[in-house]
């Protein structure tokens, strides 16, 4: 508990990735696709739908699957809950680094409950979004 993992390598946010994600979550706001529209709203490039940030959480969370000391069996993982707190939207061209902290681990009724916090910032150090991911690791049998 309280364990902080090393910062992830930078994730480069791409325009086409944003458009692809926007299609997948039925995000119809033109700011996700139309550069002129995004610039008119004061952004340097197209902006990501809010839940795009989950990609950063997933990438950082992979460290838990890969950590032999943690030994998380991904096939038993169920998504319990999710929170995003935004400083600003994610913008195409951002290079984002995520620092993950294990905030809480508990055990109830044979299942393990895990909360991780992910601080996402640009490589320049500007905070962008804080993510809390709550997972349930189901016990065997």
């Amino acid at each position, binding site marked *: 508990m309280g364990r902080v993992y090393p910062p992830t390598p930078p994730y480069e946010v791409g325009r086409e990735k944003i458009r692809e994600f926007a299609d*997948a979550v039925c*995000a119809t706001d033109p700011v996700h696709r139309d550069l002129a529209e995004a610039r008119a709203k004061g952004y340097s490039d197209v902006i990501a739908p809010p*839940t795009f940030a989950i990609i950063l959480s*997933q990438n950082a969370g992979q460290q838990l699957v890969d950590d032999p000391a943690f030994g998380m069996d991904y*096939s038993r993982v169920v*998504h319990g809950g999710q*929170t995003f*707190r935004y400083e600003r*939207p994610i913008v195409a061209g951002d290079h984002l680094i995520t620092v993950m902290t294990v905030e809480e681990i508990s055990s109830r009724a044979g299942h393990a409950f895990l909360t991780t916090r992910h601080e996402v910032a640009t490589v320049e150090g500007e905070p962008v979004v804080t993510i809390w991911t709550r997972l349930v690791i189901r016990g065997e049998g």
Partner: protein
Amino acid sequence: MQPGTEFPAQTFRVTRADLVRYAGASGDFNPIHWSDRQATTVGLPGVIAHGMLTMGLATQAVARWVGDTASIVEFSTRFANPVVVPDDDKGTEIVVIGAVKKIFDDGLVQIDVTATCQGEKILGAAKALVRHQ
């Protein structure tokens, strides 16, 4: 907007193709979202939608209600019940409704969100905080 203001229901159809599209876009390739065999092995009734797809659709409902995606400063939810998506052309339907719960002194507006599928609540305590101009 004032406390009690209700927003019109937003309906989203979700098919297996939508799950595959979301898996590719998000990088979440957990097989419970595309393989009935794997889903039933872990005790699910069949392939279920990604919780984050459901949350993504609920977030879009809020974005449409307030007219500006970037005004959403916080969104939080539990995943209460899985969304089972049958392997047919119709898939299933997610209905999202919402209402203004509270307006804070700093101008932030709390919108409570309810999402259902086949009459069952799929999100728990879902709420958005939005900046209101």
